């Protein structure tokens, strides 16, 4: 035996003075690793109840349940995920796919209870001690199961589009559309926000499947204006898209356009006619105005076998879709396709027929069971500033109408546009194009009452107008139109400090020390439109109930007169898709009235 063999047991004694490596209280003092996939946490304010966690769960461990604390609102179903720990395998796919990063996992992993029911719980609602734990599994930075960037839409560059009315947006090709459709998680949060509740997840799925005819079928279930809405819809659906929280919303509008672009027009007509009633009813409906509200109602009613005649004062159908929206945003032939499908349903459209001149409203009432007023807002409002009565101070809607008529009037080298909404952008960009054609240069100044970030026009309209050479000056109020020797020479504006008062009422405040003059041979007013109700005649105007200068309607679009309904911009606004929704509602309401009448007889 060597000396070291004798001494070595004692050398271990030095360890007595070291800190122990064992854990003193192993049951309580042993945290999970920092990225441990432990019990779930859900930030209940961030969660939007889209159910994507439920959809991806491979063990069917997640249910979307109603919780008393959360109300359903646009973009939030109000549901929240409940997890069954009898099924969960802690794979964390639910965390990885979560569209808002509300769902995560703490590093807590001990939970003991005698009651098996407690292991089915709603994180964030059923409060747990690990709810605010910082450590645990989070989706790593940059790790996404769904693409967060929208497929870029091809558009004409400013220099290629600034002197022509050719359509700007190219539309997605097959590959681009599939990529964009692939980003959609089919949660359906958008459907409630769409005024006409289009079947968005279902029609996007047809792009992934390449089944475009089924796509058109789904579009026509809720909207006979997919060519139009696929181009110019205000796409409020995209504001409710689950993808917008951590990336770009799905390009729902462009995908709709892509579907309708893929199917030949004659085939679209066949699909739209599926389910059409072939035995004509004896009900006759007159519709005044061939805009989106009137024509949608006409489509539904004619498809159900009712006789529909649409009376249109202007030379062609479409209303503001044709006479308001410029061709570079919505080509006329695309609008014509949508209208042609509606005509093919048996709808008769009589253009150049103005009620009150060519036929009276009383005659319409006598010859039809019901009448729909869908006349739109075709009269421009005036600022009534000094000089605005001059003939070279015109309304935007009138000028846009003349451009659609094909009038090639001379545009002065300088123009001032008053207004900060989309109509103002439409006329400014149209006149800029004509100036470029006529003079080789743009001289349009647009003044808006609102500050830059509060302007009513869509951001892309403002940006594109600037790209095309329009000078946009926010926070300017019109003071007077300057006239020298009977000719308009400019517009005088004053700095607008604020548009609304503390109560939110329209009460612009000005700084009179800040006055500017904008050279202009033509001043265009684009500050709002009004309806022309003169044709109603005195007795009907008296009989109807009004709300300020709008005809009062109920939820079904019914006026106070039993034979008369009203829809569209003149009573509701503000966009095509709202008018489409109203058209459907009114057609259903009229058909209900027909059924009730038949039941009584």
């Amino acid at each position, binding site marked *: 035996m060597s000396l070291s063999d004798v001494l070595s047991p004692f050398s271990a004694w030095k360890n007595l003075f070291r800190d122990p490596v064992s854990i003193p209280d192993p049951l309580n003092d042993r945290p999970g690793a920092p990225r441990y996939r432990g019990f779930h946490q859900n930030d209940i304010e961030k969660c939007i109840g889209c159910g994507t966690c439920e959809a991806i*769960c491979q*063990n*069917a461990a997640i*249910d979307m349940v109603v919780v008393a604390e959360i109300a359903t609102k646009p973009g939030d179903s109000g*549901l929240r995920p409940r997890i069954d720990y009898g099924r969960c395998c802690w794979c964390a796919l639910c965390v990885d796919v979560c569209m808002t990063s509300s769902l995560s996992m703490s590093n807590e992993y001990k939970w003991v209870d005698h009651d098996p029911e407690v292991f089915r719980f709603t994180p964030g609602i059923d409060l747990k001690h690990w709810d605010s734990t910082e450590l645990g599994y989070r989706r790593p930075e940059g790790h996404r199961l769904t693409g967060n960037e929208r497929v870029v839409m091809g558009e004409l560059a400013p220099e290629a589009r600034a002197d022509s009315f050719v359509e700007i947006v190219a539309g997605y090709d097959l590959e681009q559309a599939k990529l964009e459709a692939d980003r959609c998680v089919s949660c359906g*949060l958008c459907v*409630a926000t769409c005024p006409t*509740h289009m079947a968005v*997840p279902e029609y996007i799925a047809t792009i992934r499947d390449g089944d475009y005819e089924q796509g058109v079928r789904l579009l026509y279930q809720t909207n006979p204006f997919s060519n139009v809405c696929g181009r110019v819809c205000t796409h409020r659906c995209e504001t409710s898209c689950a993808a917008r929280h951590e990336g770009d919303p799905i390009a729902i509008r462009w995908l709709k356009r892509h579907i309708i672009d893929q199917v030949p027009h004659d085939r679209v007509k066949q699909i739209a006619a599926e389910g059409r009633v072939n035995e004509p009813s004896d009900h006759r409906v007159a519709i005044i105005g061939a805009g989106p509200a009137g024509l949608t109602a006409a489509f539904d009613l004619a498809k159900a076998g009712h006789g529909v005649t649409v009376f249109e004062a202007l030379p062609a159908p479409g209303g503001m879709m044709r006479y308001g929206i410029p061709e570079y945003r919505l080509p006329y032939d695309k609008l014509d396709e949508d209208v042609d499908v509606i005509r093919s349903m048996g709808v008769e459209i009589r253009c150049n027929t103005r009620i009150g001149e060519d036929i009276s409203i009383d005659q319409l009432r006598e010859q039809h069971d019901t009448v729909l007023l869908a006349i739109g807002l075709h009269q421009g409002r005036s600022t009534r500033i000094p000089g605005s009565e001059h003939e070279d101070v015109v309304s935007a809607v009138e000028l846009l109408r003349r451009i659609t008529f094909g009038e090639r009037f001379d545009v002065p080298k300088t123009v001032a546009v008053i207004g900060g909404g989309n109509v103002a952008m439409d006329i400014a960009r149209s006149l800029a194009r004509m100036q470029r054609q006529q003079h080789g240069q743009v001289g349009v100044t647009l003044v808006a009452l609102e500050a830059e970030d509060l302007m009513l026009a869509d951001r892309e309209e403002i940006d594109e107008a600037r790209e095309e050479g329009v000078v946009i000056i926010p926070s300017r109020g019109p003071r007077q139109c300057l006239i020298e020797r009977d000719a308009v020479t400019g517009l005088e504006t004053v700095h607008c400090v604020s548009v609304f008062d503390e109560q939110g009422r329209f009460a612009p405040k000005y700084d009179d020390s800040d006055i500017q003059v904008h050279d202009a041979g033509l001043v265009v007013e684009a500050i709002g439109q009004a309806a022309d109700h003169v044709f109603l005649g005195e007795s009907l105007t008296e009989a109807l109930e009004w709300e300020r200068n709008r005809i009062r309607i109920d939820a079904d679009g019914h006026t106070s007169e039993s034979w008369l309904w009203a829809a569209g911009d003149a009573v509701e606004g503000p966009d095509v898709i709202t008018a489409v929704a109203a058209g*459907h509602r009114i057609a259903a309401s009229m058909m209900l009235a027909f059924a009730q009448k038949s039941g009584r007889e």
Partner: protein
Amino acid sequence: MTMQPLYQALKAGFPIGELTEQRPDLAFITVPREQLRGLLLHLRDQEGFTHLVLLTAVDWIEEDRFQLTYLLHDRKGARDIGLRVMLPRQAVIEGAPMESIHDLWPTAATYQRELREMFGIDFPDSPGVNEDFILEGWREIPPYRRDFDTLKYSNETFAPRPGRESQDPAQYMKAQLYPDGA
């Protein structure tokens, strides 16, 4: 601390892939299958990586590959290195064998038995590799393979728990916000 010096030393002797540094004390290298045994021996006997922490697999079904990860620990250096080997997935499913390393670390036999059961990757020479590991009486395809339909299996195998119900978000929103459809 960095794994770069070790990586450069290994690269001088072996044709190996890129270094992925997860942490200063944890890195991964993808290596050719035929270099695996030599690298494991070198790391164990020359570089201090004496402990086999784990051997596991990933099913890259889209790329038709199985990935084996051999994670080794260097006690003295307090660092880990993972060697990744890619196998042709379809060939492995059809029975192409993988070399066992149980002679380098006896514990490897247990991992290899697990991989045989959960992924269907065969290590013919590994002791007891064909014995049941945890799935007694399993009749389906190996359950860690991505083409195994977990949801279908659990729906067919397990009774649904009473009292569960779920709402479709879009349908629920309709009922709450526009019940008459308009």
